[in-house]
C-alpha cells in the first residue's frame, strides 16, 4: 500500500506511468490494426479466393 501511495503523491507518479503505458498499448494496437488492414487489402486485391486467417500468421508476431 505504501508503494502505491508514493508519499501520498501516487496521483502524479501513477498518472505518469499510467499515461506512458496507455500510450504504448494504444500505439501497439493501432499499428497492428493498420498492418492487418493493409494485409487484408492485399488479399482483397488478389481476389476473393484467398483463405481468411492467413494474414494473422505474421501480424501476430507484431511488436509485443
Amino acid at each position, binding site marked *: 500500500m505504501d508503494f502505491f501511495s508514493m508519499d501520498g503523491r501516487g496521483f502524479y507518479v501513477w498518472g505518469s*506511468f499510467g499515461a*506512458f503505458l496507455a500510450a504504448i498499448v494504444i500505439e501497439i494496437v493501432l499499428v497492428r490494426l*493498420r*498492418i492487418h488492414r493493409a494485409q487484408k487489402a492485399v488479399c482483397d486485391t488478389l481476389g476473393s479466393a484467398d483463405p481468411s486467417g492467413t494474414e494473422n500468421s505474421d501480424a501476430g508476431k507484431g*511488436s509485443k
Partner: protein
Amino acid sequence: MSLFKYSAPSSFYPLAGRLVPWFGTLAFLLAVGGLYLGLFVAPEDYQQGEVYRIIFIHVPSAWMGMFIYLVMAMYALLALVYQTRLSAMMMEALAPTGMMFTALALWTGALWGKPTWGTYWVWDARMTSTLILLFLYVGYMALVNAIDDKKRADKAGALLVLVGSINVPIIYFSVKWWNTLHQGASVSLTQGNKMAATMLAGMLIMALACWMYSIAVALCRVRAIILERELHAAWVKDIREVRT
C-alpha cells in the same frame, strides 16, 4: 552494394518482419528490468521523495522525442539526395512514435512539476523546446497527411524535416537565451543532487527499452506503409502466395 539490397521495399518488408519480434522482445525485457530497478531497487530521493521516480519515464521519453526527430532528419537527407523511397517511408513510420514520446515527455514533466515545484507548467527552456519539438512533429504529420500524391508527400515531408532540423539548434539556443534573459524558473531535473548508481542505471535501461520499442514499432508500421503503397506491385503477390 549488398547494403542497398535492403533499401528496396520488396526485400525490406520480410526483413523488417523478421526483426520486429527480436526488438519487441528486447524492449519488453529491458522495460521489465528498468522498471524493477526504478520502482523497487532505487532508493528514495532525499529531496523529492518518491515522486522523482517519474524520471524513469520522463527522461527517456524526452530523449526519444529528440532522437527520433534526428533520425528522421537523417532519413530526410537520404530521401532527398538518393531518392530512396524507403527512407521517406521510414520517416512516416517514425513520426507518430516520436510525437508520442514528445507528448509523453510533456505530460510526465507536468505531473512531475506540480508536486515538486508547485505548478504543472513552467516556461523553462527544456519544457519550452520540447513543446516546440511537438509542434514540429505536428507540422510534419499534417503536411504529409494533406498531400494525396505519395511521391510529393514524401519529398515535401523530407524537405520540411530537414529545414526543421537545421532550425532545432537555433530554436534551442533562442529559447535558452530567452529563459536566462527573463530569469524565469530554471528547473534542474537531474543536476544538483548526485544520482545513485541504481537510479542512473534504471534510467539508462529504460531509455534503451524505449529505443528498442521505437525500432520495433517503426518497423512494424513501415511494413504496413509498404503494403499500403505497393498494393499492386508484383512482389506483394509473391509474398502472399508463399504464405498461403
